[in-house]
């Protein structure tokens, strides 16, 4: 398989940190010499970070009090 195709295939598990050490080293070796794949990885990584930030809404201020009120009262 073309090394860039292989790289693309393992990109998501790589970013999920679920590759074995050997697999990871082989990806990193390829990345070190391939600007195209480096860009692709950077893009996917940035995208993930961005989705996480964009979707992270602070808890509404009143909610904690409502949840606390749900506790079983002490006798």
């Amino acid at each position: 398989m073309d090394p860039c195709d292989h790289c693309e295939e393992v990109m998501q598990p790589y970013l999920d940190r679920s590759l074995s050490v050997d697999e990871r080293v082989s990806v990193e070796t390829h990345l070190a010499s391939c600007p195209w794949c480096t860009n692709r990885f950077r893009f996917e990584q940035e995208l993930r970070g961005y989705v996480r930030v964009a979707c992270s809404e602070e808890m509404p201020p009143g909610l904690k009090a409502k949840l606390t009120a749900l506790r079983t009262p002490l006798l």
Partner: protein
Amino acid sequence: MSETDTEGRRIAKEARERVRFEEEALGLSDQVFRVARGLVNSREEAEDLVQQTYERAFRSWRSFTPGTNLRAWLLRILTNLNIDRARRMQRRPMTQPMEEGDYFLYNKLEESAGRPLEEERVVERLSQDDVVGALSAVPHDFRDVLVLVDIGDFSYQDAAQILDIPIGTVMSRLHRARRVLKQELAERAVEAP
């Protein structure tokens, strides 16, 4: 020691354990809310879902095994409640995502930028609303996994346990969810002026 004493101690011990459980659970509420917000389409729905989750958690606290992952336990309640809710609302049936390559969004953004993407932070071309809108368009079976792993930061293993599905299913749904999300983002990026 009399029997009443023993019973009194037992009750006191249980009350202490319950209080500890409730405090620990409340301490995780902002994280639980964040996941809830990713799973549903509005802040109000997320608030309702979190409240229902805590009602149920406080009621069935005895079924939690101390020393195990409380955040995962709470989110298991939350995702189950959300599945019931989705059924009640008869949300649109899960659609098969278009099988397009993962390059799709990348190419689209590159095209609209008119130059290779290396020089700028491309994802900043997408607004927060684009991302929230795109996420809510992901069919909910896929979205659950995506939110747990990519927003809640759970491992595949934890997500499998929370959703009560095999780890292989977590991985395949995650793969599809990310694709659908990117396709939705690409559509929004194209719509932008």
